[in-house]
């Protein structure tokens, strides 16, 4: 097999090199950077555990972490409920089914930057579409992005809107696997539509729900372009996200070591939260 082995190596070589240069090396160097002070201009200096210590006391960082949890607390339930509702509604013989599905999925393919700019306009206090609609029906306008109480919820709603189509597809795939005869059986047993949903559909969609939960969580931790464009992290730093802080440290403060530390902390947090979710729900799934 020498020729085959050689060919295999040759063909896989570019990727192996790529992995080394752009994946392995950065991962290792990220950890190294945690222990360095570096502004990219002068040479790096050893920092010991300075960065780590700084991070544990850094109010801005922990505020960002808190904001992320606020975001997740609103975004995740909203995402699951809306995606589930739309998927269940679509899961039947419908006219124009492809049209609905395409409509819901449209924001998924649009760039996050565009969505941010668009919703900036929608949420604009004076001339934004939403407030104009509210006023039209006689309600008071809300300072969506400038009121500290509503800013993060507003962003959470927007991200939900953007991604719901994606999760609808996931749920639709899961719904295909619920046996038709079991649905008929439960109807005959006297279940109303709601009871059928609660006792049959929902439990059988648990794997998909776990997936939605995990992906939304990861998404939430990686929030960047939305606060960057829409609020700059304010008002009162209520929408300041972890990645935004990372970017600021790298791009504006030129503190590479500290920025890398934030990156590592973020990766660990994501890993940790996802692992906990999987543990809690994986056992539910196995049951």
């Amino acid at each position, binding site marked *: 097999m020498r020729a085959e082995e050689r*060919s295999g190596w040759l063909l896989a070589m570019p990727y192996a090199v790529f992995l080394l240069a752009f994946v392995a090396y950065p991962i290792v160097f*990220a950890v190294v950077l945690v222990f360095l002070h570096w502004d990219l201009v002068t040479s790096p200096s050893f920092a010991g555990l300075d960065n780590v210590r700084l991070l544990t006391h850094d109010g801005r960082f922990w505020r960002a972490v808190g904001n992320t949890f606020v975001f997740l607390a609103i975004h995740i339930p909203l995402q699951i409920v809306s995606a589930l509702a739309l998927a269940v509604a679509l899961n039947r013989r419908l006219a124009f089914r492809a*049209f609905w599905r395409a409509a819901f999925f449209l924001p998924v393919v649009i760039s996050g930057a565009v969505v941010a700019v668009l919703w900036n306009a929608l949420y604009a206090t004076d001339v934004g579409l939403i407030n104009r609609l509210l006023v039209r029906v006689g309600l008071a306008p809300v300072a969506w992005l400038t009121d500290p109480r509503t800013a993060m919820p507003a962003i959470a709603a927007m991200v939900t809107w953007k991604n719901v189509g994606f999760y609808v597809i996931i749920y639709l795939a899961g719904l295909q696997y619920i046996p038709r005869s079991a649905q008929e059986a439960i109807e005959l047993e006297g279940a109303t539509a709601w009871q059928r949903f609660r006792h049959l559909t929902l439990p059988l969609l648990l794997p998909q729900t776990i997936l939605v939960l995990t992906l939304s969580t990861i998404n939430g931790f990686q929030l960047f372009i939305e606060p960057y464009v829409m609020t700059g992290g304010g008002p009162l730093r209520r929408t300041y996200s972890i990645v935004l802080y990372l970017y600021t440290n790298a791009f504006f403060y030129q503190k590479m070591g500290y920025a890398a530390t934030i990156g590592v902390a973020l990766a660990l947090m994501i890993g940790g939260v996802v692992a906990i979710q999987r543990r809690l729900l994986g056992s539910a799934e196995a049951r």
Partner: protein
Amino acid sequence: MRTLRRVALYAGLTLAALTFIYPFLWMAATTLKPPFEVGTLALIPERPTLDNYRTMWARAPFGRALLNSALVATTITAAVLVLGSMTAYAMARLRFRGRPVLQAVTLGVLLVPGQLTLIPLYTLIVQLGWIDTYAALVVPYLLNATAILMLRQFFVQIPQSLIDSARMDGMGELRILFTIFWPLAKPALAIVAIFTFMGSWNEVLWPLLVVRDQRLMTLPQLLTVFALGGGAGSMGVSLASAMVLVVPVVVAYVFLQRYFIESMAGAGIKG
């Protein structure tokens, strides 16, 4: 009774669909409105004007940015397709030492959050002197683990007999890959092409880090800078710049939606 529920269902779905489509329509309409009309609910401006577009075009190099995005996205997609399928072919059909390790590592790559490697990659780019170059935008994306895994899954299913007879005809591996596998793999290639292209087209954090010069900015990046930097001045103008980014995508989406959905949903699940 049943028809009543049916009607309610359709009404609900229409309402939902509207919440997804209407903002885009309103955005498009707003870009055509003169300043005093901006913010109204009307979908058809009373005095339509292209001023917003003219202003936007004059104030920032959007044409250039469009070209940049196109260039970068196309290059990356081409590279991912070619290099990716080479790698996938090797992983799927050629036996070599280290193959299982390579596969395991590729799967592992999917687990790594981008933010971990962001800063080191950035410093690498700086040290290579690639700030404000196309290289910085393109090279870190030339290969893509998700694409490789998807293509590999497809390549594994092609019957061995095709390869054997090709080898007997004297074809080399690359020839086999591109003349036999590629035509058969068109659907998979299309799917990979779409999510790779879209991923690159929509990417904004990386360009924001490695490109400062407006002439080299990608479209979403310029849009962000423009909208933030106050260069827009008015909602009409900033939305106009967003339209430049959105319209080609929406047009492609209208015609190819099935492929978009299959591609981006499939890739997302794997990731």
